[in-house]
C-alpha cells in the first residue's frame, strides 16, 4: 500500500469508509422519509401493490377529525409535568452543587431511575398505581389520606397525569445531572466575587446561577416539548390508550392506524405531521438559541 500516493489513498479511504454508512443512511433514514411523504397522499393498505392517489385527503382527515389531531390534548399533561420536572431538577442540581455531605450518594441515587429498563419501570408503576393492591393507595391509607386514593390509571381525567408522572420519576435525575454539569462549569471565582460584594444566597441564585443556565434550560425545555409530542411507550405498555381512549397519543394512534387498521396512507400522513411539528419545535429552538448567542 505504501507505493500508492496519499492522494489516491485518500480517495480509496473516502469510498471505502463512507460507502456503507451512506448506503445505510439513505436506506434507513432518507428513503423512508421520502417514501413516507409519497404514501401520505395515497390510501396504501400496507400489503397490496396498488394504491390510489388521494391528494391532501389524508391531511384533511387529520386536521378535521377530532379523534386524530385532538389527541394532542392528551399530551398537554406531559408538557406541564415536564416543565415541573425541569424546575425540580434545577432545584436538586443547585442543592447538589453546594457543599454538602453525601453529595455523590444523592446524585447516584436520584439518577438511578434513568438507568432502569423502561418496560420494567412501566410494570413497576402498574403495581404501585394499582387501585386495589397498589402501594400508592396503600401508602395514602396508612398516612390517613384515604380520601386521596384514586384509580390512577383508570380515571380518564387523571390517567395522563399519572403516566406523565412516571416519566417525571424516570427522567428528573437525568435532567438534574445535565444541570449539575452546567453549574459546575460556572467559574468558582464568580461566586467568590459575589460573596465579597455581599450578595446573599438567593440573590446569587437569582442573578448569577440561573442566568448562567439559560442556554441549557432552553435546551431541556425543547427536549421536553418534542418529547411530549412523541409520547409513546408508557401508554403503549400500561393503558393501551385507555380508559376509553383517554390516554391515546398521536404516535400511538399512528402506529395503530398502520399496523392494526392497515391504513398506511393515513398513518404516513400522521407521521409526516409529527415530523413537521418536531422540526418546527427544533427550528424555533435553534432560532432562539442563535439569537441569544448573537447578542
Amino acid at each position, binding site marked *: 500500500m505504501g507505493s500508492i500516493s496519499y492522494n489516491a489513498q485518500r480517495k480509496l479511504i473516502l469510498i471505502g469508509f463512507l460507502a456503507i454508512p451512506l448506503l445505510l443512511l439513505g436506506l434507513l433514514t432518507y428513503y423512508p422519509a421520502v417514501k413516507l411523504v409519497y404514501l401520505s397522499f395515497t390510501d396504501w393498505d400496507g400489503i397490496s401493490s396498488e394504491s390510489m392517489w388521494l391528494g391532501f385527503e389524508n391531511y384533511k382527515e387529520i386536521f378535521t377529525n377530532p379523534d386524530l389531531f385532538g389527541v394532542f390534548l392528551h399530551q398537554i399533561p406531559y408538557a406541564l409535568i415536564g416543565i415541573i420536572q425541569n424546575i425540580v431538577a434545577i*432545584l436538586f442540581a443547585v442543592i447538589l452543587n453546594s457543599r454538602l455531605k453525601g453529595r455523590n450518594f444523592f446524585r447516584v441515587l436520584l439518577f438511578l431511575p434513568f438507568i432502569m429498563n423502561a418496560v420494567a419501570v412501566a410494570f413497576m408503576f402498574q403495581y404501585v398505581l394499582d387501585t386495589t393492591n397498589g402501594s400508592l393507595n396503600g401508602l395514602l391509607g396508612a398516612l390517613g389520606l384515604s380520601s386521596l386514593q384514586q384509580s390512577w390509571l383508570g380515571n380518564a381525567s387523571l390517567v395522563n397525569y399519572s403516566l406523565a408522572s412516571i416519566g417525571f420519576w424516570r427522567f428528573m435525575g437525568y435532567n438534574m445531572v445535565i444541570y449539575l454539569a452546567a453549574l459546575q462549569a460556572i467559574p468558582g471565582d464568580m461566586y467568590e466575587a459575589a460573596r465579597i460584594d455581599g450578595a446573599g444566597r438567593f440573590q446569587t441564585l437569582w442573578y448569577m446561577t440561573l442566568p448562567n443556565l439559560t442556554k441549557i434550560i432552553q435546551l431541556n425545555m425543547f427536549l421536553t416539548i418534542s418529547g411530549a409530542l412523541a409520547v409513546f411507550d408508557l401508554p403503549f405498555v400500561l393503558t393501551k390508550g385507555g380508559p376509553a381512549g383517554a390516554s391515546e397519543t398521536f404516535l400511538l394512534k399512528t402506529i395503530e392506524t398502520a399496523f392494526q387498521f392497515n391504513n398506511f396512507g393515513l398513518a404516513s400522513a400522521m407521521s409526516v405531521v409529527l415530523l413537521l411539528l418536531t422540526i418546527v419545535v427544533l427550528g424555533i429552538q435553534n432560532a432562539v438559541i442563535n439569537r441569544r448567542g448573537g447578542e
Partner: protein
Amino acid sequence: MTTRRFDFVQPIKYVFLLIGAFVVLFPPYVVLVNAFKREDEGGSPFALPASFLNMDNFKTVFERADLGHAFLNTLVIIVASLIGNIILGTMVAFALGRIEFRGKGIILGAFLFATLIPTITTQVVVFSLLQDLGLYNTLGAPIMLFIGADVVQIYIYLQFIKNIPEELDESAMMDGASLFRIYRTVIFPLLGPATATLVILKTINIYNELYIPFLYMPKTELVVVSTSIMRFAGNNQAQWGNICAAILLIMIPTVVMYLFLQKYIFSGVTSGAVKG
C-alpha cells in the same frame, strides 16, 4: 469570615434530598419485598416477606417468561450492534474528520439532519423495507436498525477526533504509513474513550428499547428483555409476586453496571447533552 451561626438552609436541603430519595426508592422497594412473597402470603404491600430465601417467584418467571432466551438474544443484539457502530462510526469520523474533499459539507449535513428525524415516525415505511430484505422476524432487523438508523456515534466520534492532534498523522505519514494503517494503529486506539462512552450509552439504549423488538420480532424464540416481561404479564392474570420478580431480574443488569461505571455514565450523558 462570617460569624458561625446556625445555618438553617442546610437542614432544608437534606429534607428535599430525603424526600427525593424516598420517591426514587419507594417503587423499587415495593417490588423488591413482593418479589419474595408467596401468593398466599397476603398482608400489606409494604410488609417484608416471610423469607428472603423464597426464590419460587424467580424460578417461575425465569422459565415462564423465557428470560434465558431473552438475555441471550439481547446480548447478541447489543454486541453485534456495538461492533457495527464502532467500526462504521470510527470510519466515518476518520473520513470526515481527517480528509478534505468536495461535498464534505453535504455529507456531514446529511448525517446531522438525520438526527432530527425520530426513528419511530418512519417505521411505517421501514417496516415493509425490512420485510422485503427478509429481516422480519430475525435478529438482523434490530441489529440493522441500531447500526444504520442511529447516528449518535458519528457525533461522538467527530467531536472526539478533533482533539487528536493532526501532527500524529503527519509524523506517521513521514514514516511512510498508509492512511489505513494510520486509522487502524493511531486514530482507532486514541478514540478509545469515545468508544467507552458509546458502548455504555448504546448498551443502556438497546437494553431499554421496547418498540423495535416488539414490532420486528414477534416470534416466540426471538424474545428480548423488554418484550419478555410484556408477553409474560399479558399471558398471566396479574400474579404480582411473579411480575415483581421479573421486574427485578430485568432491572438488575443495568443497575449493577451503573453502580460500577457511574463515572463514565455521568460523563457520557453530559458530553452527549452539552454538545447540544
